[in-house]
């Protein structure tokens, strides 16, 4: 299919062109990661992972959210340091102490969140931090030279972006190309692309593939991380699958198929996990929230229609960027849908602000607690009572005693572990912070609670308590919409699972039909 493909190389030293002196330091390089392990407090993110990459090869790296792909790549890019294991380039061990180190060794990373400066032009971005200068120590900018060189690199990528164009005038796809140009100008021979197509249109994706093929032909090795298995099928020479921080398998060009990848990503041992953790059966009554043809700003062309019933936990699965958080925000009045109607208990509901939603008993537990959930410098007491301080007032004057009692009771009910409710929320652990966010709402008679990634960054013990609380709310008749990228969390807690992909609901699974494979299939298709 591609004439330059190096397909199926067991030993990355060998490649499309026979290298003159075996693995000499000629034009061809190989990159090897051996037995890489990395732990974070409470989790083992990577466990003896091996990976190798040859020049002129596209290696796709796939795995579920949390499988360890990003961690592995951050180690390769010098952002993290591994606890164990080694990295070799052309058979020589290298140690990266910083991103700069890694880039000196030819590693370039194209980030998911593009890291460029909006207010500068393309050439300035490409050469940021190592500008060409003239005039000795005066270091005047040599714009001509930078523009010329940028133009040359972009030309090689068959791009028509003007080196002097302001970055903010460029589309997302164009910015990505600028990042690639920047990596090339840094002398990158190994390029890491983290979800490069997550925000691109079909046409843009196709032209990115052209660029990738060009890079390949120029002898660069590319690690391509993606959830979109269709894309992986069409661009990858090999696929490495990670699962739970371990190697789950390597597929050669001929072996690559959608089903094989999903199989390896899920693993057999976890197949029937949900049965084991089946929650207590309970009565499910009428619809609490109903969305009809709901469209959010993020995916203006995709409509969502779902129902969340009283007393159930509806899991909302999908890949990061599928539009789930945006949906949650539109439901809870943080943002407004561009069209469509929401019904609460059969009545039309169109919140203009979070306040409107809160007044109707609809609460959002946001994904990013520190940014949206907490006033971090404020005390636990202040945070817990924030949405309804007026309950603890007499003629507008806060009765400290009433407030303290209420906050202390909430802290006790949720087992928030703090030396005093007067300490700042910032100093709490992730689990306790999340409980503070929950405590804000629980006193207020919720009708619908939307949890967005309820246990991200939380230790196992606190996780279990949050699950228990969630179930308790549901049995009390509250409707719960739980967004999660953690497959076990979805399977272990949901009564039904809706799977979202590119802004639309790809399918709703009942408890009996919901397996990891089924969810994943809907999430990537």
């Amino acid at each position, binding site marked *: 299919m591609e004439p330059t493909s190096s397909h199926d190389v067991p030993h990355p030293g060998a490649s499309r062109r026979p290298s003159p002196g075996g693995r000499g330091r000629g034009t061809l390089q190989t990159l090897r990661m051996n037995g890489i392990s990395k732990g974070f407090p409470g989790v083992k993110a990577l466990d003896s992972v091996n990976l190798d990459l040859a020049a002129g090869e596209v290696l796709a790296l796939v795995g579920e959210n949390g499988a360890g792909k990003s961690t592995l790549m951050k180690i390769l890019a010098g952002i993290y340091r591994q606890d164990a294991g080694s990295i070799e380039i052309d058979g020589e061990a290298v140690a990266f102490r910083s991103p700069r180190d890694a880039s000196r060794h030819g590693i370039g990373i194209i980030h998911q969140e593009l890291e460029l400066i909006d207010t500068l032009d393309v050439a300035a971005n490409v050469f940021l931090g190592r500008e060409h200068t003239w005039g000795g120590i005066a270091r005047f900018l040599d714009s001509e030279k930078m523009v010329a060189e940028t133009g040359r690199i972009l030309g090689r990528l068959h791009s028509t972006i003007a080196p002097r164009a302001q970055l903010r005038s460029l589309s997302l796809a164009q910015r990505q190309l600028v990042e690639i140009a920047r990596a090339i100008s840094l002398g990158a021979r190994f390029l890491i692309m983290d979800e490069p197509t997550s925000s691109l249109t079909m046409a843009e994706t196709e032209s990115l593939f052209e660029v990738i093929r060009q890079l390949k032909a120029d002898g660069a090795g590319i690690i391509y991380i993606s959830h979109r298995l269709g894309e992986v099928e069409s661009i990858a020479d090999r696929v490495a699958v990670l699962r739970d921080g371990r190697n789950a398998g390597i597929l050669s060009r001929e072996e690559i198929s959608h089903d094989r990848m999903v199989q390896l990503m899920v693993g057999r041992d976890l197949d029937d996990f949900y049965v084991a953790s089946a929650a207590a059966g309970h009565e499910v009554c009428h619809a609490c929230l109903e969305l009809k043809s709901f469209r959010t700003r993020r995916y203006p062309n995709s409509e969502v229609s779902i129902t969340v019933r009283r007393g159930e936990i509806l899991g909302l699965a999908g890949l990061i960027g599928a539009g789930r958080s945006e949906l949650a925000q539109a439901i809870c009045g943080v943002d407004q849908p561009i069209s469509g109607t929401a019904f609460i208990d059969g009545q039309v509901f169109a919140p203009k602000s979070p306040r409107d939603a809160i007044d109707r008993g609809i609460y959002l537990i946001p994904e990013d607690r520190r940014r*949206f959930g907490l006033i971090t*410098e404020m005390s636990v007491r*202040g945070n817990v009572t924030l*949405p309804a301080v007026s309950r603890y007032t007499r003629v*507008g004057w806060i009765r400290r005693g009433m407030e303290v009692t209420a906050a202390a009771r909430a802290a006790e009910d949720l087992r928030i572990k703090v030396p005093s409710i007067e300490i700042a929320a910032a100093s709490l652990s992730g689990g306790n912070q999340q409980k503070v966010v929950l405590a804000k709402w629980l006193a207020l008679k919720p009708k619908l609670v939307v949890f967005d990634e309820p246990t991200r960054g939380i230790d196992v013990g606190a996780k279990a308590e949050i699950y228990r609380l969630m179930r308790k709310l549901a049995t009390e008749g509250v409707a719960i919409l739980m967004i999660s990228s953690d497959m076990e969390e979805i399977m272990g807690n949901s009564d039904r699972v809706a799977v979202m992909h590119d802004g639309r609901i790809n399918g709703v699974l009942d408890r009996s039909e919901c397996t990891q494979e089924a969810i994943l299939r809907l999430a990537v298709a």
Partner: protein
Amino acid sequence: MTRKDLGILILLIVLCAIVALRNPQFLSSANLQNMSRLIGMFGIFSIGVGIVIITGGIDLSVGSLFALLGVLMSVMLTEWRWSAIVVVAAVLLIGGGLGLLHGLLVTRLGLQPFIVTLCGLLLYRGIARYIAQDTTTGFGAEGFAWLRSSATGSLFGIPMPFVLLIAVSLVAGVVLHRSVYGRHLFAVGNNPEAARYSGIHSANVITGAYVISGGLAGLAAILIAFYTNSISPSSHGNFYELYAIAAAVLGGCSLRGGEGSIAGILIGTALLQVLRNLVNLLDIPGSLDFAVMGAVILIGVIADAISRRSSKSPRAAGRDLVKDISGR
């Protein structure tokens, strides 16, 4: 009272002790009366500016507002012969109204507070000079007895402005530290997004702060006008906004927002006035008075940064320092 308030209070006491030892005049009743009169006037508008700073904003317009309101007052009283009570109401309304305008520009149009109030600073000064035709106006030697006495009179030997400051502080203290509005103010200043997610109408809370600042500036404008008794529109109230900002920052308000207290602002105001007084009493050349103030504020801020650095990891302290410097 926070640790920061305590530190600045100690600095204030030490300074007072030094000045009193070097020059006993410091403790004379005339000097104390005069100083507390100034503290009263400066404290009132510093509280307003401090409240705006707690929202994460800034108010640069108050100094020019004093000139504009002073000139208008002179016109209303001496030319139009309005009654004193109407004039007071008008001045407070104009002050609060301009504050409302600032607040709406900041919250509805998303303009930066610095820019909005800087334009206010330029505009109001210019309008004041135009109305007064750049000549000094005043209220004459006689008349407007109770207005005059609110600036120059005393109650049981305590200068009226200081009495008014105490009243304003009590109300502001309750509002800030005990009312729902105050709670929301700190929340919005610390994290406007999280506050919004908690159902707080951040825009209204912030607008309210500018209205309070404008209203308190109106009250201070009356006192300052009758204290000087003449208003030269090009210099009346010059740099006063900076005194207010300095007092608030010295008193523990963070320019990042979300932090501060009325007690701190009061101590900060007092410290600045003691410094001005010290320049007089210790025979330091008057031309140096800004330099002395600048130096003391700088030392205070450095001491605070160092004490925080020692209580945190150096890295975290460094981050904070960078945040402080960059303002957000």
